[in-house]
C-alpha cells in the first residue's frame, strides 16, 4: 500500500426527492487499501458506493478516481468505469450468455483485444475463482455462490484498479458465503484496492484495513476492524453492532 489516495470523495451529497441519502461524506481511499463500509439499511452506504462509478449521480460534492473526476459531467465516465470494477448483491450475470461469454463480453466490446486473448484471460480468471469447468454453463445453471464468483471474474477481466462490492454475500445461502469471501480475500492479499459494503465481520477482521460506520447519510466513525468491532466510541456504532453481532 502506498499513501497516494486513489479514490477521493469530497462532501458527497445525494438526495432522492425529499430523502437525503448522503449528507456530506468525505472519504479517501489509498491504493491497495481494503475498506469495509457498515451501517443500517438506509444509511447511504450503497448510495456512496454506487456514486464512485456514477451509477448514482451526486446532488453535490466531488468524487475523483485517480485524477479523473467522476462527478464532472464532461469527463469520460466509460474510461473511469473500465478502471473500477463492481460486484452486485444480485450478481447480475448476463442471463443470455454463458460463463465464458459473460467474462469476455466487456473486453471484446470495450477494449482492443482479440477473441483468443479475451478467452485466455477469462479461462485464467475462471481458474482463479475455482470454476474452470463451468465455462459453457449458463447463469441459471449455477448456484448463487458460483454466479457471484463468475461476476467477480467478469469484473477482473477488465483489469480494474479498484473493485467495488455492494453487499456481495447478502443474497447467498450461508454455505456459499465462504467460497465468495475466499475469492475476495485472495484479491485483497494481492493488493487490490477494495471498497466493500458488507457486514461480514470475518472478512473485515481478516482483510480490511479500515472499517467505516455510516448512519443517516454520514460517516459516524471509522477505524481499524479491531477498534470498531471491539472498542467502538460512538453510541450509535455500539447500538448497531449489538444488533448484528
Amino acid at each position, binding site marked *: 500500500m502506498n499513501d497516494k489516495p486513489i479514490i477521493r470523495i469530497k462532501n458527497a451529497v445525494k438526495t432522492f426527492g425529499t430523502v437525503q441519502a448522503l449528507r456530506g461524506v468525505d472519504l479517501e481511499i489509498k491504493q491497495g487499501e481494503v475498506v469495509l463500509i457498515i451501517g443500517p439499511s438506509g444509511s447511504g452506504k450503497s448510495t456512496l458506493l454506487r456514486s464512485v*462509478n456514477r*451509477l448514482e449521480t451526486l446532488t453535490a460534492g466531488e468524487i475523483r478516481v485517480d485524477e479523473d473526476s467522476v462527478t464532472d459531467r464532461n469527463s469520460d465516465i*466509460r*474510461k473511469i*468505469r*473500465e478502471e*473500477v*470494477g*463492481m460486484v*452486485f448483491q*444480485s*450478481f*447480475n*450475470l*448476463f*442471463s*443470455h450468455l454463458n460463463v465464458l461469454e459473460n467474462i469476455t*463480453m*466487456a473486453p471484446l*466490446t*470495450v477494449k482492443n483485444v482479440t477473441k483468443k486473448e479475451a478467452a485466455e484471460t477469462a479461462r485464467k480468471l475462471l481458474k482463479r475463482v475455482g470454476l474452470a469447468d463451468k465455462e459453457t454453463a449458463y447463469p*441459471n445453471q449455477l448456484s448463487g455462490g458460483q454466479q457471484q464468483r463468475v*461476476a467477480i471474474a*467478469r*469484473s477482473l477481466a*477488465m483489469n480494474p484498479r479498484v473493485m467495488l462490492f455492494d453487499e456481495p454475500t447478502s443474497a447467498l445461502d450461508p454455505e456459499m458465503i465462504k467460497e465468495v469471501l475466499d475469492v475476495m480475500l485472495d484479491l485483497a492479499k494481492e493488493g487490490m484496492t477494495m471498497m466493500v459494503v458488507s457486514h461480514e465481520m470475518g472478512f473485515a477482521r481478516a482483510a480490511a484495513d479500515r472499517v467505516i460506520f455510516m448512519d443517516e447519510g454520514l460517516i459516524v466513525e471509522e477505524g481499524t476492524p479491531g477498534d470498531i468491532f471491539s472498542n467502538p466510541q460512538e453510541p450509535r456504532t455500539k447500538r448497531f453492532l449489538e444488533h448484528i453481532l
Partner: protein
Amino acid sequence: MAEIKSSRIEVSDGALIPDKGEHSLFSAWRLAFFGAIGVLILLPVLSPDPYLDIIKFIPDGILKTFEVTVLSIIFAMIIGLFTGLGRISRITFINRLATIYVEVVRGIPLLVQLFYIYYALGKMVQLPRLTSAVVAMSFCYGAYLGEIFRAGLQAIPKGQMEAALALGLSRSQAIRKIILPQTFKVIMPPVGNEFIALLKDSSLVSILAVSDLLRRGREFASTSFRYFETYTVIALIYLVITLFLSKLVALMEERMQHHER
C-alpha cells in the same frame, strides 16, 4: 431494490385455444383443428361441385394473405422496436413522440386506417394497393408491437443494464448486446400472438382489392353465386391456419418456461 424475478410477460389478445393443462385426446384444440381439416377434406369428396372448384381457386389467395402478413409483421417489428425504445427513452421529445404514435394508432380502427392511407392520402401519393395495405398494417401493428417491446424491455431486470454500464459499456452498446437479445426472447410468444391477430386482420385488405384469401373467395362467390359454400371454405381455411399457428405459439411458450426452470 425490487427486481422482477420472472421475465415472462402477458400480453393477451383474446382467447387462444391451446391450453397446456389440457392433454386429453379430445382437447378443444384437437376437436376444432382436426374437425376443420376433416370438413375441408370431406366436402370436396362428397360434393365436388362446387367445393373442388373453390379449393382449386383459393391457394393464390392464401399465398397473398401470407405475403401481406409476413411483410407487415417484418416492418411492424422494426417500427415496434423503435417505438418500444422510444417509449422508455429518457429524452422527453422522443418519449412523447412514441407515446402519441401509439395512442393515435390504437385509437383509430384498422379499417379506417386502411381507407385513409389508400384513399385519403392517395390524393397526394398514390401507392400500389399491396404497398398501401402493408404500410397500413405495419403502421397499425407497429404500435401494438411497440407496447410489447416496451413491456419486454421493462421486464429485463435493471441490474443487467447496471452491470453492463459498470463494465464500461455505453448505454447503446448495453442495449444492443445485453438488453435487446434478452428482450427478443421474452417477447417471442406475444409477438407470435400478434402475428396471428395480424393474419386475421389482413382479411381487411381485401377491400383494397388485394387478392388475398377473402378477396379470392369473394371473386369466386360473385361469379358462381355459391356464397354459402365459398365462405364456409374461407372461414375453415382461416380457422385451420390460425389454430395451427396458435399451437406453435403455445409450444414456444411452453419451451420458454421449461428453459427458465
